[in-house]
């Protein structure tokens, strides 16, 4: 029986391995970083399953491919189906209207309804509520996939994959630039804060002229605050400006965030192709699955299904890059 070798144990690699195993394939995984951890950029993600919100500034496949993600993850980890709340400061209301025009799947809500959903945000007068969206804790999701795969007998090799490997599926993210030359890194910066004084139960996006700032509750007063998008490949540190902008967004949502403790600062590079959409390529006998950009958890299930379709059934989905195979 064929053994498939998945290279890379980030969200892409683990989702691909999970999908292959679910279809009865034998799988081994290589990652020199070991189990899921801060060495992979999916560790630093927001974990929003928000295809309708993301569609505001992305091409159509993000919406069509992202919608099944919620159910895929619900079978494998804990998810919270509480929707997404999109808000704007009163001076940025034109941005809220524009956001609504560019997407679908929401209802316009006013102050009273905002208060009913999130009492700690009742200072906002109008917003958009994306009812069907969900969120998860990305670290827990990675660990759940990892444990599930181990329980299914998948071997994890804590080392680089051998150079010549049959039936390899390369999910190394930005490390695959040695082969995928049109892959670039887009810097993202995030904070994890703890603030017992504010209770939010769903992801909240605060519209901002330059970036989508969001806060995702992780439970127990812990929040993930993200995320910048900067066209640079220097991933060493967060800048003061980014930190100011992220914290200002939290402060604007509720000034009580001013007393939050900063628990973590995360900086990493998202792997992206020029159109910011994921791709599957077959090169020299290896399948490359990459380019999840800011949609790791949203699009990994669709990417994984497409990889499994290609690997096991030789079916080519729209994610398979025809030109290069």
């Amino acid at each position, binding site marked *: 029986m064929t053994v498939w070798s998945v290279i890379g144990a980030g969200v892409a690699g683990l989702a691909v391995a999970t999908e292959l195993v679910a279809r009865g394939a034998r799988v081994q995984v290589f990652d020199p970083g070991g189990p899921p951890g801060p060495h992979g950029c999916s560790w630093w993600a927001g974990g929003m399953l928000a295809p309708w919100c993301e569609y505001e500034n992305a*091409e159509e496949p993000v919406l069509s491919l992202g919608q099944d993600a919620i159910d895929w993850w619900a079978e494998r980890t804990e998810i919270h189906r509480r929707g997404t709340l999109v808000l704007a400061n009163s001076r940025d209301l034109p941005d809220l209207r524009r956001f609504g025009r560019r997407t679908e799947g929401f209802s316009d809500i006013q102050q009273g309804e905002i208060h009913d959903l999130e009492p700690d945000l009742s200072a906002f007068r109008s917003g958009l509520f994306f009812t069907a969206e969900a969120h998860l804790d990305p670290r827990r999701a990675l660990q759940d996939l990892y444990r599930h795969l181990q329980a299914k007998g998948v071997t994890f090799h804590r080392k680089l994959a051998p150079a010549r490997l049959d039936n390899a599926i390369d999910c190394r993210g930005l490390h695959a630039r040695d082969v995928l030359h049109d892959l670039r*890194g887009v*810097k993202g910066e995030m904070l994890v804060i703890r603030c017992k004084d504010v209770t939010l139960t769903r992801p909240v996006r605060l519209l901002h002229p330059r970036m989508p700032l969001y806060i995702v509750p992780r439970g127990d007063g812990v929040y993930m605050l993200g995320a910048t998008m*900067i066209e*640079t490949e220097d*991933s060493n540190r967060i800048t003061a400006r980014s930190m100011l902008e992220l914290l200002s967004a939290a402060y604007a949502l509720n000034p009580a965030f001013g007393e939050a403790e900063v628990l973590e600062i995360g900086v990493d590079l998202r792997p992206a192709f*020029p*159109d*910011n959409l994921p791709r599957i390529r077959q090169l020299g006998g290896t399948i490359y699955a990459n380019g999840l950009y800011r949609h790791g958890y949203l699009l990994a299930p669709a990417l994984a299904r497409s990889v499994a379709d290609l690997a096991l059934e030789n079916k080519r989905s729209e994610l398979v890059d025809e030109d290069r195979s």
Partner: protein
Amino acid sequence: MKTFYGTALSNPLMLGTAQYPSPAILERAFRESGAAVATVSLRREAGGGQTFWQMIRDLGVRILPNTAGCHNVKEAVTTAHMAREVFDTPWIKLELIGHTDSLQPDVFQLVEAARILSEDGFQVFPYTTDDLIVGERLLAAGCKVLMPWGAPIGSGRGLNNAYALRAMRAEFPDVPLVIDAGIGLPSHAAHAMELGYDAVLLNTAVARAGDPVQMARAMALAIEAGQLAYQADPIEARDMAEPSTPVIGKAFLS
């Protein structure tokens, strides 16, 4: 035809490169519009925007790096030097922000930075207001192009003060003038060209449109229309109707 430091542009549209949904869409916006100049910011991307910067170089248009995000002379001068190294061009769009909410230029520091950079061999494109005296000072500092705002950056309000912009055109008939900032609609861009401006620089209006590629083309068409109209010497507006057919035989109203 006026040139920009000796360079004649094939198309009077200068297009920014920030905020597009993806680099692929950015590239198509340039191709569809025929924009001849790409502005690119260095401040935030400092240290490692190599792949993105290479994509900008690959557009095959003139690159106009900018000092967006700089608030004082020292920052702006340092950023300009970095831009010259990264993009191998003496062109620099000098932007010195004086006010956080309106992003209004600090014209005093602007003149100072323009002098320093011009003496150092830079070809400076200063982002300024529509103030004539500031314009004069910038020219005296060595600038050979002026870029007055139409309205605050990203506001999409069009030409807030057409009177002042017309006065600027009249005051500096031989200086290449570019409307920089505030354009939201193609009609705004056409308006700028109808006033006799030599180029229009815009970014948000295209990048944040629902269909950036189509909006880029709409802007290019409007700019061409406005330029043709200006060159065709439009009629003057009048208070009363001017009949285009003879009135002989009709009752004369006293």
